[in-house]
């Protein structure tokens, strides 16, 4: 009797979870199917899983718009943003966690405060500064304003302060410099937080739209997200090309998430719960 009830519960549980999973997954299946359809099959019966495998769509989509160039631009931008956010956040977090200097708490408070400022409230002045610097349509505009992250500094500082100070002292007695302590002791011990930050900043950079939209006008400087949005406006009726482009733009962030999933989820719950 008890066992049977348990069994029914299980079936119900799986049924509900599967139902929601299907809703979540359906759009992905749909774009995959669409992206592999030949043009003439667009209005054929709506299959849910790919029945055609017209891989040429991908090639044709890449030729219809300079997707390779968009990919290159996005990769350059993302690499610099991730590297910058990790290195500069680690440096700042180290200063806040380990060094004593006047004004430390006030500065930390100001840095935290910048997290509260919505981007939309500062995008006009940021644009004007980039304009004044002559950075419109350059990688500088895409990269420099996003090289540091208050969230990253906060995340790493919270992690650094859990590392025993005795380790620093021991290293210091052995003749290790401050920089040596950061790179050889603190960072290797903080890999969970550092890799979570790297994944966060990757996803942020790869998927960002509004800032590139403002500072990039030249088609050759577009990021993948910009390119996709513009492609949609121009080739909106060529569904199969559009979907092929969409798939190629989406795959990297999903792959990065799947590879770093454990760290990423840990990072989210850590910072999410600590607020």
């Amino acid at each position, binding site marked *: 009797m008890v066992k049977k009830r348990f069994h029914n519960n299980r079936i119900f549980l799986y049924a509900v979870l599967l139902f929601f999973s299907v809703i979540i997954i359906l*759009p992905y299946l749909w774009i995959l199917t669409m992206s592999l359809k030949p043009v003439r099959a667009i209005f054929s019966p709506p299959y849910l899983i790919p029945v055609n495998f017209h891989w040429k769509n991908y090639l044709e989509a890449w030729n219809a718009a300079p997707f390779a160039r968009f990919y290159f631009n996005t990769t350059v931008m993302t690499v610099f943003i991730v590297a910058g956010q990790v290195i500069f956040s680690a440096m700042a977090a180290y200063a806040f966690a380990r060094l004593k200097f006047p004004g430390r708490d006030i500065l930390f408070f100001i840095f935290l405060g910048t997290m509260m400022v919505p*981007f939309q*409230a500062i995008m006009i002045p940021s644009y004007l500064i980039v304009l004044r610097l002559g950075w419109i349509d350059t990688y500088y505009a895409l990269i420099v304003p996003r090289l540091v992250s208050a969230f990253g500094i906060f995340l790493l500082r919270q992690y650094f302060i859990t590392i025993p100070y005795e380790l620093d002292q021991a290293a210091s007695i052995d003749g290790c410099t401050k920089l040596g302590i950061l790179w050889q002791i603190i960072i290797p011990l903080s890999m969970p937080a550092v890799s979570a930050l790297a994944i966060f900043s990757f996803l942020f950079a790869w998927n960002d739209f509004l800032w590139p939209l403002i500072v990039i006008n030249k088609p050759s400087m577009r990021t993948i997200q910009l390119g996709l949005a513009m492609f949609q406006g121009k080739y909106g009726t060529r569904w199969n090309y559009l979907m092929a482009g969409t798939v190629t733009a989406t795959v990297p962030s999903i792959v990065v998430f799947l590879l770093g999933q454990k760290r990423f989820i840990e990072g989210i719950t850590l910072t999410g719960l600590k607020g």
Partner: protein
Amino acid sequence: MKKKEDILAATIYLLPSVIVFGLFNIFPVLYSGYLSFNRWDGLSRTGKFIGLQNYSNIIKSIEFWNSLGVTFYYTAGITFFGIAAGLFIALLLNRRFPGRTIFRTIYFIPVVTSTIAAAIVWKYLFDPGSGYINIFLRFFHIPGPDWLTSTTWAMPVLISLGVWKRLGFNIVIYLAGLQSISPEYYEVAEVDGAGPVTRFFRITLPLISPITAMLVIMSLIDSFLVFDQVFVMTNGGPLYSTDVIGLLLYRNAFRYFKLGYASSIGMIIFLVIFLITFLQRRFLSIGEQSSW
């Protein structure tokens, strides 16, 4: 000696962050405030100081109140459905069974998917003629509406995308919260004869209320700042029914180049976010006092 060394090291380590934050975060806040008191088209060298006129123009404009209403509608929809569904699924996932982590992964994938890509897909899923949604409805002989070109339905479609994208985040945070509840509470309650419904309302819900408060605040902030998907899917239409405040700001700044007027919209957005964050502090301190 040692203190001096610390100050020098701190200066070097903080310099990049201070420069970038100073130039692209802190200065822009002040500059934005200044611009909001000016009339400026961006072409002339400087703007003209007009005091509070931008703000009074905004308060008198129908567009602004429409945008505010539309944005609140969107925000309320995302927050309500995202939190309710997130909690429901998290409760189902909060037990040991084979395949649990696979489900969690599936639910989370939309969170990391590009909003632009998702918006493009949504646009075509909700196509009145050949989109899957209407094909599905036709199968049951229900005539589907013209989703994105209907003033009634465009916003619910946007909300459905937002919930789909946000759900996984809410689930993961709720799961972490549920797992931190000590099983003893449930054991005691069961001994006392409390059924599953009573246990949910008397134990689970009160104990995770600080997490609910936090998720509500985060959801309010993120949804209030929505831009990308609206830009791609409806661009504010039809008839301004999805003209969220971010779009109003973008249009005034980068289409009409009313930089002063747009800056004052930016300052109002800042004020709203500030108020919500302020609420968060109150909520969280209440949470800490009770149980968390």
